[in-house]
C-alpha cells in the first residue's frame, strides 16, 4: 500500500509548492492514473516515490516504510522494488535489447544463467524475444517502450511507475502498451501511470487521481479524464453505454465530435459498439476484459 499523508513539496525554498497538502492511498495491485496538465505536479509524485526528491512536510509510506525518513544509502534498494517506465524510453543506445534488460539484473549480482532465463522470459512476454540482439535505434518507438517495460519488470517489482509512457507513441501503439501494462497489473503488480493522454484514460476507465497546481482536485474510481468527459459521455449514451461498449473508438469519436460541436448527441452508444464489433470481430471491451 502507498500512502501520501498531507505531502507538500517545493523544489526551492522560495519556489511555489509543486505539491500542496496532497493525501491519497493506493492499495496493492491497483491500477491508477495520475493526471494533470504539464507542471501540475504529477511527475513530482513519481520523484517522491523513488526518493529522487524529498517532501518539505507530510509523510509518504510504502507499506510500513516511511520514505521521508529513508537513509540515502537505502534508496537504491527501494528502487529495486519499483519498475520505472519513461516517456523517452531511456534505453542505453550502445547496448542490445537483451543487454538493456539484463543490465537491471546484473546490478543485483544475479548469475548469468538466471539472467539469461529471466530476460528471455520477460522479452517473450513483451513480444520481443526475436529482437533481443537488436539495438534500440533499430526498433520502433513501441518496441523501444516494450524494452523499457521489460527492463522495469525483469526484477519482479511490486510497483510499476510509468511517467507518460505513451507520450511519444501513436494511438495504436499506445493502446498495445497500455494493454501490456494492464496485463502486468492483473498479475498483481501495482501500476501507477502519470499521463495527460485523455483518450487513453477514458478508454481504460481506471482510478484517476487528478492534480492541478500541486493540489489533489479529484480522486475517482472508474473515472474518465475530466468532468467534461463525463458530461460528453452522458450526451453520447451514458455510463451504461460505456460499460457495454468499453473502449469503443466510435463512442469516443462521437464524444470528441460532440466536444468540438461537429455532431449532435443523437447516435446511441450501443450502435457504435455494434459497429465496432462488426468491423473488428470484438469490441474494445472484449479485448480488455472478456478475453481474460
Amino acid at each position, binding site marked *: 500500500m502507498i500512502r501520501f499523508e498531507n505531502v507538500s513539496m517545493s523544489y526551492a525554498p522560495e519556489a511555489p509548492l509543486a505539491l500542496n497538502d496532497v493525501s491519497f492511498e493506493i492499495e496493492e495491485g491497483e491500477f491508477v492514473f495520475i493526471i494533470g496538465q504539464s507542471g501540475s505536479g504529477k511527475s513530482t509524485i513519481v520523484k517522491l516515490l*523513488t*526518493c*529522487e526528491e524529498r517532501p518539505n512536510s507530510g509523510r509518504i509510506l510504502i507499506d510500513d516504510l516511511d520514505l521521508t525518513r529513508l537513509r*540515502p*544509502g537505502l*534508496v*537504491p*534498494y*527501494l*528502487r*529495486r522494488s519499483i519498475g*520505472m517506465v519513461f516517456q523517452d524510453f*531511456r*534505453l*542505453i543506445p*550502445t547496448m542490445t535489447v537483451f543487454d538493456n534488460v539484463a*543490465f*537491471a539484473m*546484473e*546490478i*543485483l*549480482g*544475479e*548469475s548469468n544463467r538466471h539472467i539469461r532465463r529471466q530476460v528471455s522470459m520477460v522479452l517473450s512476454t513483451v513480444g520481443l524475444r526475436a529482437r533481443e540482439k537488436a539495438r534500440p535505434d533499430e526498433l520502433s518507438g513501441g518496441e523501444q517502450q516494450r524494452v523499457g517495460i521489460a*527492463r522495469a519488470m525483469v*526484477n519482479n517489482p511490486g510497483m510499476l511507475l510509468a511517467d507518460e509512457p505513451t507520450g511519444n507513441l501513436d494511438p495504436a501503439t499506445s493502446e498495445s502498451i497500455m494493454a501490456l501494462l494492464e496485463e502486468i497489473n492483473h498479475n498483481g503488480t501495482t501500476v501507477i501511470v502519470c499521463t495527460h493522454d485523455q483518450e487513453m484514460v477514458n478508454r481504460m476507465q481506471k482510478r484517476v487521481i487528478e492534480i492541478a497546481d500541486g493540489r489533489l482536485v479529484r480522486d475517482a474510481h472508474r473515472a474518465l479524464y475530466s468532468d467534461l468527459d463525463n458530461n460528453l459521455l452522458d450526451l453520447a449514451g451514458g455510463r451504461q453505454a460505456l460499460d457495454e461498449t468499453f473502449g469503443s473508438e466510435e463512442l469516443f469519436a462521437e464524444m470528441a465530435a460532440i466536444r468540438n460541436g461537429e455532431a449532435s448527441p443523437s447516435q446511441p452508444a450501443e450502435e457504435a459498439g455494434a459497429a465496432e464489433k462488426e468491423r473488428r470481430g470484438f469490441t474494445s471491451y472484449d479485448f480488455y476484459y472478456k478475453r481474460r
Partner: protein
Amino acid sequence: MTALRKLLNLIRDSLLNMLRHPLVSVASLTTVTLMLVLLGAFTTISLLANHSARVIAQQPPVEVWCSNELKPEESAAIEAYLEGDPNVLSWKRLTPLENYELLRAGMGESAKALDSFPFEKLQYTFQVRLVNPEEVDAFTAQIRAYPGVQNVDVAERTMRTLNSIVRVVNTATLIAFAIMCIVSLFIISNMVRISVLARSEEIAIMKYVGATKLYIRTPYVLEGALIGTAGALLAFAAIYFTYDKLYTSMVGRVVGDAQSSPFTASNMMLPLSSIAWRVLVINLALGILIGAAGSALSVRRHIQV
C-alpha cells in the same frame, strides 16, 4: 559468489565503457600520456639537476689540517675513520712535501721564493670529498675529535652556495611537481567529466534501476586507473627511449676542459637504469592515482541519488 560476480561485471563494464566510447577513451589516454610525459621529463630533469648539483658540490674538498708532526698511529686512526664513514666519497692524504710541491706549483714563476723554505714546517692534510656536502657540519665535528687534527677548512662560502643551490633545486622540483600533479588531475578530471557527461543518461538509468553509488562509481574509477596505467606505460616508453638516445650520444663527450674532468656527461648524467625505474614507479603511481581520483571526483556529482 554474488560479490565476485559483481566485481567481474564491474571490470567487464569498465573495459566495455572504454570500447563503447573509443573517442573519449583515446582523448583521455592522449591527455594522460602527454601529462605524464611532461611529468616524467620533469622528474628526469630534476633528478639530473640534483645529481649535477651534487657532483659539483662534491668537488671543493674539505681540507683537514693536521699537525706537521702527525704520528703514524694518529694518521692511521684518521684514515680508518675516513674509510669507514659512509658520507666520505673519497679522500687523499698529502704529506708536508706534497703540500710544498702544490704550493710551488700554485705560485708559478714566483715559486723560486720558496727555494729555501723548510717544507717540514708545512702540515699534513687530508683532502676529503663528501657524498652529502650538506652534512659537512657533522663530519667536521667528528674529525676534529681525532688527535693530531688541528683545523678543518670547509671552503664554507662555496659549500654554502652549493648547498643552497641543491636546496633550491629540490624545493623547485617539489613545487613544480605539485603544480604539475594538480594540473594533470584537473585536466584528466575534465576529460573524465566529458566521458561521464557522455554517459550521464546511462548513469541516470543505473540509478533508476537501483544501482548503488559504489556500483556506478567503480567502473569509472577502474577505467580511470586503466587509462592512467596505459598512459603511464606509454609515457615511460617515450621517456625511456628518448633518454637512452640522449645518454648514448652524450656520454663520453667532454663538458669541461679535460677527459679527466669531473664535468663529463658520464659524471653529470645518471645512467638509464638509475633513471628508468624511478620514472616508471612515479609515472605508474601518479597515472593510477590521478586517473582513479580524477574519475571519482568527476563522477561524484552525477551519482547523487
